[in-house]
C-alpha cells in the first residue's frame, strides 16, 4: 500500500524506501491516478513553467489591480534589488518572486494556486530563489514541488486549506510549510528534517487571521506572500542545521485546525473585523462599492 495520511507516515515511507519524500508522493500519485510517473512529472513540470511566467510578468508589471491597492510592489522591489543588496540574493529573490506571482494574481493574470490563489506566491518565491542561487536543475525543482504537494495534501486532509474555515494560517501558513519542505529537499535535507521544517514553519503561523480589506485578495495578502516565502527559507535552514520542532508536525497541523475552528467568523475571510474594518480599510471598501 503506497499511500500516506500523516507527515510521520510520509517520513517513514521515505526512510524505508531510502528516498526523498518527493519520490513517495510522485509514486503514490501515479498509483492513485493509474498513470505513469513520467506523465505526472510532466504535468507538474508544466506548472513550474506557469509559475516562472508569472514571476517574469509580475516583476515587469507597472499596472495596478482593479482596486488600485497593489500591482507595482514587485517591479519596485525588483528595481531596488538590482542596485542594492542588504538581505542577500536568496532572500531578496524570494521576496521579489513571491510579490510578482501574488501581484499577477491580484491583477487577473495567470497563476498556479498553491494551495490557494491567495497564497500562490509563496512556493514559487521560495523554490525559484533557492534553485537559482544554488544552480539546481529543473528536475530537482519539479520533484521538490511533489514534496510540497504531499505536505499540502496531509494538511488539507487533516485540517483545512481554506481561509474561510481556518483563517490565513490555513492558506499562507500551509503554503509556507509546503515551501519549507520543498526548500529543505532542494538544500539536501533528509525526510526527518522535512518534517521539522514543516512543523517550524506552520507553528510560527498559528493564529494568523484572514481579514482582507474590501474582501479582496490584496491587502494584506500580497505582501504576506513575500513574508511567507522568507519564512519558509528560515524554517528550512533551521531544520537543515538540525534544529528540531519540539511539537511534531502532525500535532502542529491538528493544533492549527483547532485554532482555526476557535477563531471567530469575523476573522475568517468575511472582512467583518481586523484590517478590513480599520478607518482606512472601510474607506477603501466604500470606494470599491460606489
Amino acid at each position: 500500500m503506497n499511500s500516506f495520511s500523516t507527515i510521520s507516515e510520509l517520513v517513514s515511507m521515505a526512510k524505508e524506501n531510502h528516498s526523498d519524500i518527493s519520490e513517495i508522493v510522485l509514486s503514490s500519485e501515479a498509483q492513485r491516478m493509474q498513470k505513469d510517473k513520467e506523465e505526472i512529472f510532466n504535468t507538474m513540470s508544466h506548472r513550474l513553467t506557469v509559475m516562472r511566467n508569472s514571476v517574469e510578468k509580475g516583476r515587469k508589471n507597472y499596472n495596478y489591480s482593479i482596486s488600485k491597492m497593489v500591482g507595482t510592489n514587485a517591479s519596485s522591489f525588483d528595481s531596488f534589488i538590482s542596485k542594492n543588496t542588504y538581505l542577500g540574493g536568496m532572500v531578496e529573490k524570494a521576496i521579489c518572486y513571491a510579490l510578482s506571482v501574488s501581484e499577477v494574481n491580484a491583477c487577473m493574470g495567470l497563476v498556479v494556486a498553491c494551495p490557494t490563489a491567495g497564497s500562490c506566491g509563496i512556493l514559487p518565491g521560495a523554490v525559484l530563489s533557492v534553485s537559482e542561487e544554488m544552480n539546481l536543475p529543473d528536475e530537482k525543482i519539479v520533484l521538490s514541488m511533489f514534496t510540497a504537494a504531499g505536505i499540502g495534501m496531509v494538511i488539507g486532509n487533516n485540517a483545512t486549506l481554506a481561509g474561510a474555515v481556518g483563517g490565513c494560517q490555513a492558506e499562507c501558513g500551509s503554503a509556507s510549510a509546503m515551501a519549507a519542505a520543498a526548500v529543505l529537499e532542494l538544500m539536501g535535507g533528509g525526510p526527518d528534517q522535512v518534517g521539522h521544517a514543516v512543523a517550524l514553519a506552520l507553528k510560527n503561523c498559528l493564529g494568523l487571521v484572514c481579514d482582507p480589506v474590501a474582501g479582496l485578495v490584496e491587502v494584506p495578502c500580497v505582501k504576506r506572500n513575500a513574508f511567507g516565502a522568507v519564512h519558509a527559507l528560515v524554517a528550512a535552514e533551521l531544520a537543515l542545521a538540525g534544529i528540531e520542532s519540539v511539537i511534531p508536525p502532525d500535532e502542529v497541523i491538528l493544533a492549527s485546525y483547532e485554532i482555526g475552528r476557535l477563531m471567530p467568523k469575523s476573522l475568517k475571510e468575511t472582512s467583518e473585523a481586523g484590517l478590513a474594518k480599520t478607518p482606512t480599510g472601510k474607506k477603501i471598501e466604500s470606494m470599491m462599492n460606489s
Partner: protein
Amino acid sequence: MESVFDIIGPIMIGPSSSHTAGALKLANMARAILGDTPTEVKVNLYGSFAKTYKGHGSDRAIAAGFLGFSTEDERIPEAISIAAKKGVKINFVPSNKPVDHPNTLEFEMVDKSGLKIIVQGISIGGGNVIIKKIDNYEVNLTGNYEALIVGHKDYPGIIAKITQVISSKNINIAYMYVSRLERGKDAMMTIETDDYISTDIYSTLSSLPDLNLVKIIHRL
C-alpha cells in the same frame, strides 16, 4: 484532496478561486444548460459576490463563462467588451436579498430564439461550484462529471425508463437528483455520469414520450 494537482493547482486567472474561477465555471455551465450563448443575461449577485464582485473581477469572469472561455484564458480581463462586441448583453445586479450560501449567483438568460431560462448556482471554494436551481427545479450539478438534464412527467416508472437508456449504453451513473414541482406534474432529473455522454443518448431519450427537455452538459 485526492491529487497533488488539487494542491499545486488549478492553473487559473486570478485573483480568487471562488470569486473568479468559480464564477466563470457557473456562467459556463449556465450557458451549456441554455444550449447556446445567450443574447441577454441579467446576473443577480448575492452574498459576498454582491459586495466584492468588481474587485474580484467576477463580472469579467462571468462574461468569459458566457463566451465559453476556460479559467486559464488570458482574455478574461477583457471579456466584458468581447461579449459586448459579440452581441451578448450582460446586466450585473447586486442584491442584498438573503441567500442560503454566501457565494450565490443567479443568471436570467435569453437566447436568440427568445427561450428564457433561469439558473442559480453557488461557488463553494477552490474553484468548485454547484448548480442548485434550473427555473423552479432544484438540481445538483458540479461540472466535474458528464451530466444529463431531463425534464419529464412525474409518474411511476418514468425514472426507470430513462436510466435504462443510460445503462443500455454502458454508462455508469455517479450521482442523480430528482425534483418535481407537484405530484403528477412536471419534474426534472439531473444525472452525473463517469462516462462520456454521446449525442446518440440525446436522440434516444428525445424520442421517449413524456419528456419535455433533454440536455447534455459535458464535464468542464
